[in-house]
């Protein structure tokens, strides 16, 4: 599962153009410079593309924090 977190971290780093960014579950948009509604969409798209999943309309804008997003994303992946 740490693999999963690493992959997501890489995508965050790329999207926000911050190579040293570390994720934490309570992280919110306000904690990351440049995380506005536009980059949020870019982030969602990049996650969808990378993991081959689709978020619902409610999910797209509705995550409270990164932890919630990760749980939702992981739930969409096939279980090994």
């Amino acid at each position, binding site marked *: 599962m740490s693999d999963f977190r690493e992959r997501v971290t890489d995508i965050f780093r*790329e*999207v926000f*153009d911050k190579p040293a960014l570390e994720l934490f579950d309570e992280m919110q948009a306000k904690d990351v410079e440049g995380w506005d*509604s*536009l*980059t949020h*969409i*870019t982030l969602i*798209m*990049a996650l969808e*593309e990378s993991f081959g999943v689709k*978020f*619902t*309309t409610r999910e*797209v*804008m509705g995550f409270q924090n990164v932890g919630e997003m990760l749980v939702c994303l992981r739930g969409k992946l096939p279980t090994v």
Partner: protein
Amino acid sequence: MPATVIGQDLPWQAWQLGDVPLHKLLAAARRIDRASAARKVRVAVLGDAASQHYCQALSAILKLRGFWPDIYEAEFDVIRQEVLNPRSGLYAHRADAVILFHAVQALEPRFSAAADKRAFTEEVAADLENLWTRLLAARMTVLQHLLAVPIERPLGNQTAAHAESFAGAVARLNTLIVERARPLGVRLIDTEWQASYFGKRVWFDERLWCQARQALSPLYLPALAKATSDVLLLGLGTMVKCVVVDLDNTLWGGVLGDDGPEGIEIGQTEIGLAFRRVQAALSELRARGVLLAICSRNHESAVRNVLDTHPDMLLRSSDFAAIVANYGEKVTNLLAIRERLNISFEAMVFLDDSPFEREMVRRALPALCVPDLPEDPSSVLDAMARWGLFEGLPATAEDRARTGYYADEAARTAQRERFEGLEQYLADLGMEAEVVPFDAYTKSRVLQLVQRSNQFNLTTIRYSEAELMALAQEPSVKLLCLRLRDRFGDYGIIAVSIGRRKGDALSIDSWIMSCRVLGRGVEELMLGLLADAARRLGCRRLVGRYIQTAKNALVADLYPRLGFTPVETGDEGEYAREVDTVEIPAQPIKLTTPTREDA
């Protein structure tokens, strides 16, 4: 993907920009400073969909193409107000060009509310025309997005046929926009093509329209913004005026020099059909006024002959403004083509199936656009559409006559330039060669070289499998098989030579090499290996022989080039060289020790 080149990253070329993910595009553009994007473009974007992402993508692409954008982005959905109010921000910005970014989703409520569905398209078209004429009067270039025909089909298969359906109305509206834009000089951005090409199921993203009024999935924004930049930059020096093509496995299947004019694949069947379609696509470009030119490793006479006599060839020699076919460096030949046609590399595209040649050319001539050609020729048409390189208006009669003009001019001014970066390029390739044994693993490839190669073949002795097996056992014979790899991949066994001890000389009975690796130091390496073998067998001299055939003119002067001198008392075409002065070169190919699993 960026064009990663040995030792350095070249900037993305125009053909790649539509495929770069949005966030990478934005990150790359942030690192561009004002100095490297010298030419300023003042643009206004008016949209009835959210346009922030669109503007970001457009801005990034313009910067990556060497332009510095100054974009006025109007508020959401105030297109009419901006255009009709002479004191709006739009006019204050003094934009050179205005982009009308209309989204089909924004039109839908108006259609729903329209009492007269049949009059709807006419009304919308008239509205647009009104906007255009005002903007044109303010001396702005107008760019209008066509509308992506939506996927809903309330009337099933009959939807498109009915103006009463929204999809039917949008399709008609597009036709009206096209008809009316043209006489006014309004430039169109074909959003409908974008959506169709990528697939409307994914191009439209209903979630994002509902959430954020995004007209399309941001995944396809780079491509749309790239297309917009193509239209915006028309006339600013980005137009492709000439397509230079390689021949073997680019314009037809196979190698003309090896397979002969009857053996190459072009025509009505299988791979030949795919290449014929490529030729047809190039022919269309030519008809539009784009010049075609040839840069190929071949004999010019053979090239002209096959172009003009092959029954299934679509492009003939007269379709090319310049034909440069020889065994020299591609870069040198491209410089010659530029010279002859007097067209800058910025206005040229070079198509070549070989990744090696492509990288070499990109590195030596960074201004020249060298798109990656798909390995499968049946994917080339798709790739050409996707690159978006051929923006332009239909040809005039003058354009069509230009090919003839250039061909005459070319004949007068033909001249060549030297390419100097080659040595460094070869050094950076990381080439590794290995002498492999002739055994069950290598037998079939070695036999193929011995029995089928025509061009780089000094004596063209066609040994059978049994004969080769016997030779390999002979203590006075050295059979050398050479395998090559570099950072582009493994070429497999690319050269074979057979040396026989005759008195104090090692006689080079056969020497065969694949033309793919010509001029990369393999010849010199093989010479060094032969000299080494000669010394081990107690020989002082190497004796080589060139036996002329219809197809091996390529190596007529190989021995003199490698420092051999003619043997006065010997047979015709016989050359000799002392071995004590010949070493195995340390550069540019590194000789590695054989590893069994590779052999």
